[in-house]
């Protein structure tokens, strides 16, 4: 691509957004409105946001789960990425649960939308660390979304459309006991832009295509007893093709992702407060990442069949003491088909610069791995006067098996592997109300996470990988200041161990391309000042300062985590004035670390330049600053309401650098910048 064409494309997203982002219609059945839950939480820094509130926050485009981007402890992710970086942990180390069922990704490919319809959600809870014994298999944080209680009467519809997608929701009460809701969404951004943008431009600006659909059925068995069925499904497709007159210079990327979950939650709440919950689920995931850099093909395809069970029994066994027993089981049988360089897809800690072709080595593997993690847990809750103590123990028993312990070689018979791994994770959480308005909290615990099935490849990874480990310690001080105005100050420290990193050997032994020799730590503090709705005003200020480091090998240097972000500030404010409401969001964040390119050499065989790197992660992208505004106007009739809104992203037209890019000789750095000013005008109808 020449300089002239690259520059010309920059104007395209602005014009496209302003022209096309004008239509939005949604129907919000009043019966599906979620309720605000109590603020009390037992773990420092746990933040819960009502879904209805989240949908009106500027920058979310009405997508409730995207509120997580403005919560404390969450790094500002690169535009268009699917990253969820919580307290310096990798995205894969933070779990996303919907009604207790893990889903593989929060965002659709491209990061434009989350994978769950916002109108089916009740609230969103982020626990950046120190979570309690019922949850595990995560070294980082925990993001939980609960689905909304279904409509108790009538039939309600929901149709929505905007620049990105079109969606529909249907909710019905089939008698007094049976309630059902179903939602579906299909992206049409590619169709809209396909009419406006030439195929050549689309080859440089790939437009993701996605869909998702959900269904929930609730059967009230007896008072306090309920059986539900939940379907969560998501599909993604992204194709980018950069043609070239030289076929060996042509590039193509394909990303496909599909995820399906079916769960049967059962809940029984007795008159004495005893609760029994049981949620079995099955699922299927498929991901395909295929890249072709000229003659260098790379393919990673995973197909996973999943099943699991989450169950708990919680009962007050004494006046001050409540006991919870439960089990959390997750199993996956994964087939991995992979070919290409060992260095692609890249891992955290890899030296890489934007646009660099992969190494030319071509490896091939086709293997299966099964990981079954069964985790019984016990948790006791002592509530004595102003003190609450929650102590728990979780035992993770992992069975890991695979069909290859070494790569296939000639006609030799293949040998599989199987082994067990155990981990005992004690957790402790304290909450002490030292004053009517002041609460101290602290939490600590041990956490384990099984390896990624794709890393068990005998060729690309290591079949002997075991559990990774983390220690969390957090403490907090929360103050109820006045009329819904509260503040919380939290400090945190995480120690990570047995992390998976690449072998630094030129020719690692068989099955040892990856080693479990990495370690790391992250520490910092955050403050959240939050105003609940008071005289029309609501919002929060969150600020996080932190540092996250990694050491790939015990004798290696300590470096910054690839997604380390020192400062993250978000200010969210909303004001309701009659039928009008106004919102604003301001964000500031430090740039991610990058490794400087200090030189280059010419590769005469491939006719291209290759970079020479300086010290790892020694420079940073410039800081990110963005202001978003939103205004809503509601028109209401007896059975109908119309909401108009205007959302303006990046009001100040800040040219935020998102990535460093070099010229072909690697002697002239520049930046890829993010969103220009983007106006989204929409309408919402509810009946």
């Amino acid at each position, binding site marked *: 691509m020449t*300089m002239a064409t690259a520059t010309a494309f920059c104007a395209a997203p602005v014009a496209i957004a302003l022209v096309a982002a004008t239509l939005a219609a949604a129907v919000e059945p009043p019966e599906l409105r979620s309720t605000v839950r109590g603020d009390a939480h037992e773990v420092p820094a746990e933040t819960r946001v009502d879904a209805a509130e989240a949908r009106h926050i500027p920058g979310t485009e009405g997508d409730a789960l995207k509120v997580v981007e403005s919560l404390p402890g969450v790094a500002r992710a690169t535009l268009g990425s699917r990253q969820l970086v919580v307290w310096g942990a990798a995205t894969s180390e933070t779990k996303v649960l919907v009604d207790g069922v893990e889903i593989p990704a929060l965002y659709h490919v491209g990061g434009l939308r989350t994978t769950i319809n916002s109108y089916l959600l009740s609230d969103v809870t982020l626990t950046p660390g120190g979570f309690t014994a019922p949850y595990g298999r995560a070294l980082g944080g925990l993001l939980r979304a609960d689905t909304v209680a279904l409509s108790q009467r009538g039939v309600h519809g929901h149709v929505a459309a905007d620049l990105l997608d079109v969606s529909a929701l249907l909710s019905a009460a089939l008698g007094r006991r049976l309630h059902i809701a179903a939602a579906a969404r299909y992206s049409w951004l590619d169709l809209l832009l396909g009419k406006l943008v030439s195929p050549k431009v689309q080859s440089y600006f790939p437009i993701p295509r996605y869909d998702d659909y959900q269904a929930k059925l609730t059967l009230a068995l007896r008072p306090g007893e309920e059986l539900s069925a939940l379907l969560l499904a998501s599909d993604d497709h992204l194709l980018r093709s950069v043609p070239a007159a030289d076929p060996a210079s042509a590039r193509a990327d394909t990303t496909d992702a599909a995820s399906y979950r079916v769960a049967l939650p059962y809940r029984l709440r007795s008159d004495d407060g005893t609760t029994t919950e049981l949620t079995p689920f099955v699922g299927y995931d498929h991901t395909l990442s295929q890249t072709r850099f000229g003659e260098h093909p790379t393919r990673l395809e995973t197909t996973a069949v999943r099943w699991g069970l989450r169950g708990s029994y919680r009962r007050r066994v004494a006046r001050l003491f409540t006991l919870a027993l439960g089990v959390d089981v997750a199993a996956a049988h994964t087939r991995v088909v992979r070919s290409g360089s060992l*260095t692609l897809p890249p891992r955290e800690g890899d030296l890489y610069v934007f646009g660099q072709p992969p190494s030319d080595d071509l490896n091939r593997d086709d293997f299966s791995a099964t990981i079954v993690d069964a985790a019984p847990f016990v948790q006791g809750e002592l509530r004595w006067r102003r003190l609450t103590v929650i102590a728990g123990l979780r035992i993770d028993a992992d069975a890991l098996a695979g069909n290859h312990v070494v790569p296939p070689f000639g006609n030799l018979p293949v040998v599989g592997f199987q082994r067990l791994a155990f981990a005992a994770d004690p957790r402790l959480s304290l909450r002490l109300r030292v004053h009517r308005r002041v609460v101290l909290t602290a939490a600590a615990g041990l956490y384990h996470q099984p390896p990624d099935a794709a890393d068990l490849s005998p060729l690309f990874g290591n079949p002997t990988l075991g559990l990774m480990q983390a220690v969390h310690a957090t403490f907090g001080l929360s103050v109820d200041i006045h009329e819904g105005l509260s503040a919380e100050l939290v400090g945190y420290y995480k120690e990570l161990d047995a992390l998976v990193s*690449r072998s630094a050997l030129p020719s690692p032994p068989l099955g040892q391309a990856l080693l479990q020799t990495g370690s790391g730590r992250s520490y910092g503090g955050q403050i959240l000042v939050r105003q609940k709705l008071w005289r029309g005003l609501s919002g929060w200020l969150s600020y996080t300062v932190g540092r996250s480091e990694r050491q790939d090998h015990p004798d290696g240097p300590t470096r910054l985590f690839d997604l380390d972000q020192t400062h993250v500030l978000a200010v969210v404010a909303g004001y309701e004035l009659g039928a009008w409401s106004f919102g604003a969001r301001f964000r500031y964040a430090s740039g991610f670390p990058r490794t400087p390119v200090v*030189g280059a050499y010419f*590769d005469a065989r491939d006719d291209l330049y290759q970079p020479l790197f300086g010290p790892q992660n020694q420079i940073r992208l410039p800081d990110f600053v963005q202001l978003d505004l939103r205004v809503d106007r509601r028109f209401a009739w007896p059975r109908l309401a119309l909401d108009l809104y205007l959302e303006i992203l990046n009001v100040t037209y800040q040219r935020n650098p998102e990535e460093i890019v070099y010229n072909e000789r690697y002697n002239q750095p520049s930046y890829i910048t993010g969103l220009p000013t983007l106006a989204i005008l929409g309408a919402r109808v509810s009946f």
Partner: protein
Amino acid sequence: MRRLALVLLVAGCQPSLGPPLSLVDAARVVAVRAEPAEALPGASVTLTPLVVSPAGTVAQPRLDWSLCLAPKPTTENDVVSAACLQAGGTTPVARGVAAPTIALPSSACRLFGPDLPPEVAGAPAPRARAPDATGGYYQPFVIDFSSRLSDGRSSMPTIALERIRCGLAGASMALAVAFSLQYTPNRNPTLTPLGASVAGHAVALDQIPRGAVVNFTVGWSADSPERYPVLDPLAQTLISHREAIRVAWLASDGAFHDEETGRGEDDVLLDSANAWQAPARATIVHLWIVLRDSRGGVDFASYDLTVR
């Protein structure tokens, strides 16, 4: 990270990338032809560089040549180990020489190929190094031009890669035998003379109209794109491939429509075309064409264009 880079393009803006590589604005090595193009470890190869400058081809460049004996770690994404570019990381083999004849290390297939190092008792079994998409392994050479530039400017080092003939890893005995029967060591491709036309009419290279869009066509001999087998280790079969051909275009002035053109391995045509915008003034322009096949074979040619 690469996936991240991809999605950045969804909504972001890519900045300017600078002048094209096809414009020769300083002296540099742009290609190295090895003869033979593929050799056994221990064999001698003659390396002939193409050094270009705004004043034309550098006829007898004085270059420093070194052998790199450091295999690339799996943590590095480049084509050679970063140690090859560090002081003391290479073994000098020729100094101030234009086209040296160098003996390949006898251990080349163990350092850069599939030959396994000796097993150590109690240690995990070593792994065979993976080939490239053509099944090839390569011995790197480092070419240093910096100390030879008359104007004292520094120049980027150049890496030349000589394809080495090694055994076949991961194959049954029968497949290995079949492979050795089918495989023909790579030979350098051969360029045929350059043709030029303006608006569909042939034009002589010394009669280029100023400001004209010139269509160049270059061809190669019919035996340049060779066939070769590649092992699919999972299917345990040999797959027959045909070499793709790449053409790099360079000039001291003017602008090419494409910096590289070529033919894929399924494309049987034996030529490739490119358009070039001639300068708007009368001048002499130096033009270079570099032909590369998929297995590392090289040919090149230079022309002087007279723009009138």
